[in-house]
């Protein structure tokens, strides 16, 4: 089991390390986001007399949102690589079990996300003087909650592509931006119209970003936010993994494995 998971991770590592465009996608975008939002926050801080630092709230939100985005992309893109290289059939005739593929995708996504965040955190800490680690242990809790949300979306998108074909690939980028306005990344839940709030309370990142703002602005922690995010994430990850399994079974019935990439 471990050797097969290791094989997948090494394969994806080799793929990324050997390709400049792939390396850019891992390292460049998180950093460029921080630079853009960093300058914008600096400008806002100089123009307003807010009692708390806009830089802290905005840049921490940008970093955390990127965890979700990179986590999701890291998983789906890694899976899509098999489709793009017309390798899916070869993969599914090996003794690789579905759960080993799932674990391999999760570990690869985790490594990609962490590596991508390192330069972004470095820039935000040393150039914009953001105290990312001000969140302390909560940063780790927020990180895992958001990356789990990313994986849940990743498995749903990958499952849809597997079953219904490559036209669903666009969802890898679109889905996350559909979720963005309702996730309360840059503003509190109370900002949203009440009817949308009723929908947003089921979106786990809402509680992560509410919790983050409470720590930065009010210097206090609401554990109920963390608990709600965690329960929703476990539920969503379980459902999405089950969905991905079902899509594999459904693809076997439809006979599409032999046609992927053609």
């Amino acid at each position, binding site marked *: 089991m471990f*050797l*097969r998971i*290791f*094989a997948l991770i*090494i*394969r994806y590592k*080799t*793929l990324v390390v*050997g*390709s400049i465009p792939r390396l850019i996608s891992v390292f460049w975008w998180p950093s460029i986001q921080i630079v853009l939002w960093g300058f914008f926050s600096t400008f806002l801080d100089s123009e307003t007399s807010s009692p708390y630092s806009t830089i802290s709230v905005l840049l921490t939100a940008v970093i955390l949102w990127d965890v979700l985005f990179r986590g999701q992309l890291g998983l789906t893109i890694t899976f899509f*690589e098999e489709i793009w*290289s*017309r*390798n899916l*059939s*070869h*993969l*599914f*005739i*090996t*003794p*690789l*079990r579905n759960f080993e593929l799932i674990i391999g995708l999760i570990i690869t996504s985790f490594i990609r996300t962490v590596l991508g965040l390192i330069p972004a955190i470095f820039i935000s800490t040393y150039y914009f003087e953001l105290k990312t680690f001000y969140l302390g242990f909560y940063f780790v809790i927020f990180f895992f909650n958001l990356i789990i949300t990313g994986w849940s979306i990743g498995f749903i998108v990958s499952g849809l592509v597997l079953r219904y074909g490559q036209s669903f690939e666009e969802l890898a980028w679109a889905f996350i931006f559909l979720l963005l306005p309702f996730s309360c990344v840059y503003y509190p839940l109370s900002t949203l119209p009440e009817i949308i709030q009723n929908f947003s309370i089921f979106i786990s990142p809402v509680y992560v970003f509410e919790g983050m703002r409470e720590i930065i602005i009010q210097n206090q922690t609401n554990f109920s936010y963390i608990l709600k995010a965690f329960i929703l994430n476990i539920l969503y990850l379980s459902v999405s993994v089950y969905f991905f399994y079902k899509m594999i*079974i459904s693809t*076997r*019935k*439809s*006979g599409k*494995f*032999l046609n992927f*990439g*053609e």
Partner: protein
Amino acid sequence: MDSLKLVNVTKLFDNNVALNKISFTLPSKGIFGLLGTNGAGKTTLIGIILGLIDTTKGDVFVFEKNLSEFRYDILKKLNFTSPYLDLPKKLTVKQNLTFYARLYNVLNFDIIEELSEELKISDLLKKQFGSLSAGQKTKVGLCKALINTPKLLLLDEPTSSLDPETSYFVRNFLKNYQKKNHITIFTASHNMQEVEEICDRVIILDKGKLFVDGIPKELISKYNFENLEDLFLNIRN
């Protein structure tokens, strides 16, 4: 022990019958051919044996184990290659072969060097798979298909993209490999001359049904044709 046994295998795609009650058995050693016109059901049949496609009805037994129950045990002893499928293009040949060796739990990577030498692709090991010619890709695909020393090897048109000299080499390689390792090779092909030359038995599918099953020479004399190609072209009329 039979290497492969199909019992009333039927596959429907929506309401279209791709395979209709296919039953046959392949013994544990030998090279067997699978023939049929386009759309006869060859690819579907191979996909079912590989566990890539589920049957609608019927059972597949590989080494006397039911594929639907023992998929992963069976897949360890089975392998496949087709010129219509690729390996990851950005990885080198060696990286690809190492990747698949690990997936099959093959820990001794010496087999990569040995097979590469036998298939005369040692000089390609450091090249990216995507940079290879069609013929070189076919040989690398074959190398990948032998990485776990399979007991049942499935091939889809193994010489379709090769020049005559390389085709000859691959045919001889397969014959020798089968004799040396006592395995079962089941190959789908459109090359009648090749099938006649290397196969101990042929199975011909027509519109999803098993149409003919027999030894090439016996079939040719039984139906009074000159060769397998004649038989294939005329027997359905």
